[in-house]
């Protein structure tokens, strides 16, 4: 059954009015950019700006997938473990040989797909809360990663892999292009496809969605699969950026992605938000870190500022939403 049988009015409150996220969020980003530009004349240099996007790519690619899961009312905490396992797996399969690159990428993306399908199947069919399920999955995957490598760095990156993905086309870093491509693809799915419509319906009211003929189970399965593949791709991006596979490199990636998504206006309740806002969230976090570096604060202050910025932007965002009447 297609969603066309549901009266158009049923979607009214659900669809994003602005597909790029809330205006306040982008204004917040603008304020941060102005502050950074004032403090450091070099900030607005295109090379620096593109570098920020490149640095944001690992968390950004992951956050696109997590956004879709959260719009359906779920959450995916296994992405951090998938990123690490992905980068370790890629390095070991490559074993320093350029010829193995396609195989390595294929294996890693397949691993992400399998993890995503497993998450999706358990959440959708057994209706297990996704927070705790994906937390368990993360624990199991990180254990598997350590068993696989024996707890140390393993494998070697093929030279061509780094040259290709960590390089630049003109002044544009390839990883930044990959990030943008994933965002555009995600936005296309979210705004222009049937799946995109269904995820909002499932998130807003799963029961109503089911009664309207929306395949709720399949929709949930799809978003978890997308999230798994995105995280695996982010693992490849991490390997390209760092050049070494470490079993600890990804600790905390799931929370950075989650922070970006929630900053972007996608709520845990589901049915609201989207990839546009997530991009703003990712960039706000990335610019904040760059800002802390510009000011020259030590690492400990960086953590303090990170916390303060996440909280401040989130509070402003909530206040703005309340004004718009989106929240009670």
């Amino acid at each position: 059954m297609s969603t066309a049988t549901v009266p158009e009015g049923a979607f009214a409150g659900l669809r994003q009015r602005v597909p790029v996220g809330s205006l306040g969020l982008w204004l917040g980003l603008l304020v941060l950019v102005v502050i950074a530009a004032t403090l450091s004349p070099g900030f607005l240099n295109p090379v620096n700006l593109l570098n920020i996007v490149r640095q944001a790519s690992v968390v950004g690619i992951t956050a696109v997938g997590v956004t879709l899961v959260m719009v359906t009312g779920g959450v995916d905490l296994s992405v951090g473990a998938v990123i690490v396992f992905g980068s370790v797996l890629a390095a070991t399969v490559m074993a320093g040989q350029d010829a193995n690159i396609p195989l390595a990428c294929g294996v890693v993306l397949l691993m992400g797909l399998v993890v995503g399908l497993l998450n999706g199947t358990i959440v959708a069919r057994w209706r297990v809360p996704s927070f705790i399920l994906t937390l368990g999955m993360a624990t199991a995957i990180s254990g598997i990663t350590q068993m696989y490598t024996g707890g140390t760095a393993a494998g070697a990156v093929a030279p061509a892999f780094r040259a290709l993905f960590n390089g630049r086309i003109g002044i544009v870093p390839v990883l930044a292009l990959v990030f943008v491509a994933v965002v555009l693809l995600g936005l296309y799915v979210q705004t222009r496809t049937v799946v995109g419509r269904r995820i909002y319906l499932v998130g807003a009211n799963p029961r109503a969605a089911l009664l309207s003929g929306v395949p709720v189970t399949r929709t949930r399965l799809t978003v978890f699969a997308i999230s798994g593949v995105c995280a695996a791709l982010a693992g490849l991006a991490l390997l390209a950026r760092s050049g070494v596979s470490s079993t600890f490199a990804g600790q905390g990636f799931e929370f950075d992605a989650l922070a970006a998504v929630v900053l972007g206006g996608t709520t845990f309740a589901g049915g609201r938000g989207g990839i546009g806002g997530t991009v703003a969230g990712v960039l706000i976090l990335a610019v904040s870190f760059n800002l802390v570096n510009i000011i020259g604060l030590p690492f400990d202050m960086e953590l303090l500022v990170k916390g303060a910025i996440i909280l401040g932007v989130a509070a402003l965002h909530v206040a703005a939403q309340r004004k718009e009447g989106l929240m009670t």
Partner: protein
Amino acid sequence: MTSVPASPTARPGLSGFDLREQVARLGVWVALGVVLVVGIVAVPNFATAANADAILRQAAVLGIVALGQTFVVLTGGIDLSVGMLMGLVTVLANGIMGGDPALILPIVLLALGCGLVTGVANGLGVVAARVDPLIVTLAMLSVLQGVIFIYTDRTVGSAPAEFRDLAYGSIGPIPTPALLLGGLAVVCWVILARTPFGRYVHAVGSSAQDARKAGIPIDRIRLAAYVVCSVLAAIAGLVLAARLGSGFTGAGAGFELSSIVAVVVGGTALSGGRGGVAGTLAAVLLLTILATMLNLLGISPFAQRVVNGVVIVVAVAVYTAQRREA
């Protein structure tokens, strides 16, 4: 779909609800019983007094922080900052004491103060700024980590022998930390099951809107839950400080997630409103005993992580299935 068999004494309308509660409450105890029996029968050196003593001491730290996490989860919230708060308390306590027993009392007060401030800040972020608890406490995690590193970037200080008794001493045959956990658990159970505040905590978690309509000051209840959680995390941090004996900066890492796992495996729903500290306590014992068994069987810590992951997934799957059938 299975239906609840009607018994002559069952009160209509209430029987279904009660059964669900009982299943959620008893599931973890059954699992604990099974694991204990398997351990006693099949694992060498498991059923010894020394091992029981070690298990109880080990369970205390996770147990105390998980009690507090239960309050927050019951209100429908979550607290990711507890692990880093425990780390901060560990570093501050051992760093400041530096082996001087005269500083024990001031340190205990300082730790409780840290817990109070953190709890109030978390609570205000959630109720006044209305930011999602996950984001508030994640930001707090980052802030606390920053404070730890401002204080020190290496392992500092040492705990005086009198203070280490908090983790290694015994009162009669019972290990001191286990006694502390037991005492706190009883207090928490009484508060949640027998006081108006406890009823409000459940009510806020079941439906904040209904609770508000019923005249419950939901903001104050939520704030109080975060304060209880942080203060208990600070106490857990003190026991951890006594256990480790020095101020290791990464001491609390991971407790935020393991405390949430204990709460959920114990049958408290992440959506709030259902569950309690008894289940949490059973889950803490279950997880600790399981870890001890795997150690005794010589299974590598890496493989233990896989087992832990599987336990979490299976536990939640079973709860979900039971709740659906009930």
